[in-house]
């Protein structure tokens, strides 16, 4: 059965044959199909990069914005119309490099959006420079002696920021990845899904096979509400744990606390201007 999110137009997908992105978009479609959503209300926001092209290949509303800037856009869309289901999806360079500050502060703000990151540990579209998640020693045309920086660990950082939902998936496993995305979307509040993805063109280290060998799923016994335990899991380096690492349902949801919605539920686009209110404000400047 074909997904309702399958694009209606003929498309020429710009990804390389064998790229993990193909699996991820399958997982995204599978997740959306499983959820009980109104397709007219599904909005994807992305940045720039190979991963960021994903919304182009889905039958959804999208704003494909600037490199690194999808999270503020997504946050505002949700705050402007809370009826929309909003996903911010982009690459590791986009989200954790150029967009690092928004990553931090979107987590703190906790809007009810889902943040999917295609983590191929490399800059794909710009042809193979290191990304923040590249492993130490990774050699590229720019990092000629190999990466020397500590790899960015999105999960431990998200947990340190007391994120509301933190998950990790592997592109190779469409089914499980879809399940994690479903949980993330169902979760109320900001939800991170970092997806380990192979880049066949520029990452010859972290290949499909490598990921298979360096990942494992958390089992039933794992308790994702224990922050300290989640942190320990997140920083494990020999093998990456897959699944839902951390859930914190305590934090207020950004758009729910906005004064603009305190007495009025309607999305902003349906609101008119209250002339009486403006008159009253003017009068307050008279006396």
């Amino acid at each position: 059965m074909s997904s309702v999110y399958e694009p209606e137009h003929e498309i020429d997908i710009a990804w390389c044959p064998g790229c993990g992105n193909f699996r991820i978009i399958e997982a995204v479609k599978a997740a959306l199909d499983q959820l009980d959503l109104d397709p007219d209300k599904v909005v994807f926001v992305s940045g720039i990069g190979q991963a960021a092209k994903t919304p182009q290949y889905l039958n959804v509303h999208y704003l494909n914005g600037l490199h690194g800037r999808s999270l503020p856009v997504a946050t505002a869309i949700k705050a402007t119309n809370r009826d929309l289901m909003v996903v911010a999806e982009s690459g590791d360079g986009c989200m954790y490099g150029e967009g690092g500050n928004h990553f931090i502060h979107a987590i703190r703000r906790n809007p009810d959006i889902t943040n999917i990151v295609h983590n191929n540990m490399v800059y794909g579209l710009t042809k193979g420079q290191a990304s923040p998640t590249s492993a130490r020693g990774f050699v590229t045309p720019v990092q000629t002696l190999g990466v020397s920086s500590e790899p960015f660990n999105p999960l431990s950082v998200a947990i340190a920021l007391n994120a509301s939902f933190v998950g990790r998936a592997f592109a190779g496993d469409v089914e499980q990845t879809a399940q994690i995305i479903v949980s993330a979307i169902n979760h109320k509040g900001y939800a991170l899904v970092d997806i380990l993805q192979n880049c066949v063109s520029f990452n010859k280290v972290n290949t499909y096979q490598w990921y298979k060998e360096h990942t494992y799923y958390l089992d039933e016994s794992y308790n994702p509400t224990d922050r300290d335990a989640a942190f320990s899991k997140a920083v494990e380096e020999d093998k990456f744990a897959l699944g839902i690492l951390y859930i914190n349902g305590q934090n207020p949801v950004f758009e729910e606390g906005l004064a603009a919605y305190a007495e009025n539920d309607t999305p902003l686009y349906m609101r008119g201007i209250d002339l009486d209110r403006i008159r009253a404000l003017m009068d307050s400047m008279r006396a």
Partner: protein
Amino acid sequence: MVFKPGDDISIVISGQAGQGLQTLESLLTRIFKLSGYHVYSCSEFMSRIRGGNNSTQIRVSSRRVASCTKRIDIFVPIHQGAMERFHDRITHETVILGQKDIVESRYLEQGYAFIEIPLKELSGRAGGAVYANLIMTGVLSGLFYVERQLMEDEVGRFFSGADNKRTQGDILAAGIGYEAGSSLLKPGQASIAIERADDVRHELLMNGIDAVGMGGLAGGCNFVSAYPMSPSTGLLVFFARHAADSGVVVEQAEDEISAVNMALGSWYAGGRALITTSGGGYALMTEGVSLAGCIESPLVIHIGQRPGPATGLPTRTEQADLNLVLYSGHGEFPRVILAPGTIEQGFFLARHAFYLAEKYQVPVFILTDQHYLESRYNVMDLDESMVLDQRYIVKTEPGYKRYALTQSGVSPRGIPGFGGGRVRADSDEHDEHGFITEDAGVRKSMVEKRLKKHDALCDEILPPVLIGPQDYQCLLVGWGSTFHAAKEALEILGRDDTAFLHFSQVYPLAREAGQYLERAKKRIIIENNATSQFGTLLRQYTGFGFDGRIMKFDGTPFMPDEVADELRSMLLKED
């Protein structure tokens, strides 16, 4: 007491940061206005929270006043060192009003007019030095024959949020000051000759922030994202104050880049978003403005200018970001720049910005500066009929094309969730649907489409305003916040061959600009910057240059008496 029997009195109160000058300014301007006086005020302050030296100028007048002046009729120092920065403005016509040991001795020795107010003692009686500003509020209220009850009510109202004990102290202090002030002018001495007009009592007392804020609300603004930055933060605070009552989503972003991207997200989803910042913060937003250009999003950007480059003088004024605003953002796309000079313009232009932004799907700038934003005076009324209720969005159908090619270049704007179409906004070059394309032909038509909107915008340009004789020989030209200083300067000069042309839309430029310039024998430009950015723009568009430049770039605003002097000497050379 030696007041010249003027009916327009300029008071300068000079104190330290932290001494409550802003409270005094708010209180006194309200009190004077409610007493039927025309009033104007403006503060200048240092980029610090305590200490240093700040000042507030208040003009009380029988006529409308809307500008600061160099002239000081009453100088009120309230701390040691308060006179240092005013040596060139305190004259023998000035009355110095204050504690003796605060006044620099040479003023006393050289026989400057001085009236003693035992500030320390009076504050002490009220409860301590913190009450100095309230004492002076009382003194000046008394001196200007304000009704005591009115004053006390206003003080009470102002502090109504604060705790009761403090409010009582404030009212007490104002009362103590009032008694001292009202007994200063003994019968027989020259008295304050300002007439009261009943109408004034009912007028609106606003500053530039209020003007732009109210205009924004009238334009339907319901989303504000910003990162604090002087002097633009006041507008953020304005909307925060009205977030609940006017239904505005207000968010302090983590940085300016986030602020502009949030605003674009909101417009995309059907909000009407405004961002507010200053030049340095705006510099960070320019990639976002280019995105607005590419995805054809409306966007309203308020920029409160201050002196640069870099951090410059954070709390002072300048008009040096016109070029930045005009040319910022990579690539080519249309935009509009509005620059209010009056409170009324601020209101109208902010509302107009929302209209233009939404109708043409372009970024629209409201370019102000510290001086404009912090200048406060009474205005007759604002035209509430200007409230904008038309929305320029469409309900979409399946197959909807966000970037449909049209005659005017404007495509019907859909928003997600309103109708059955998909709304695709793309930062890469895109086809009519919003899909990425690299087709050279499509690229060409999309560039042309975007630029066509510039032509459409040219049919709605706000004309410049000419003040003074139609048959001028000499034309003074300005934009934005120089309006009142220039206008009053011409009044002081009183020449019938000189007029002032003020632009409140600085881009695109009115077609008639060239005609106005052509008709002048002598053209003089006035700008609060060093390189005459607007003059250069006018030259580029009209071919006409300027014979004289009145420029100021030391962080302070123009003052009409000063401008009049400069003009006079320029014209004398000619005559």
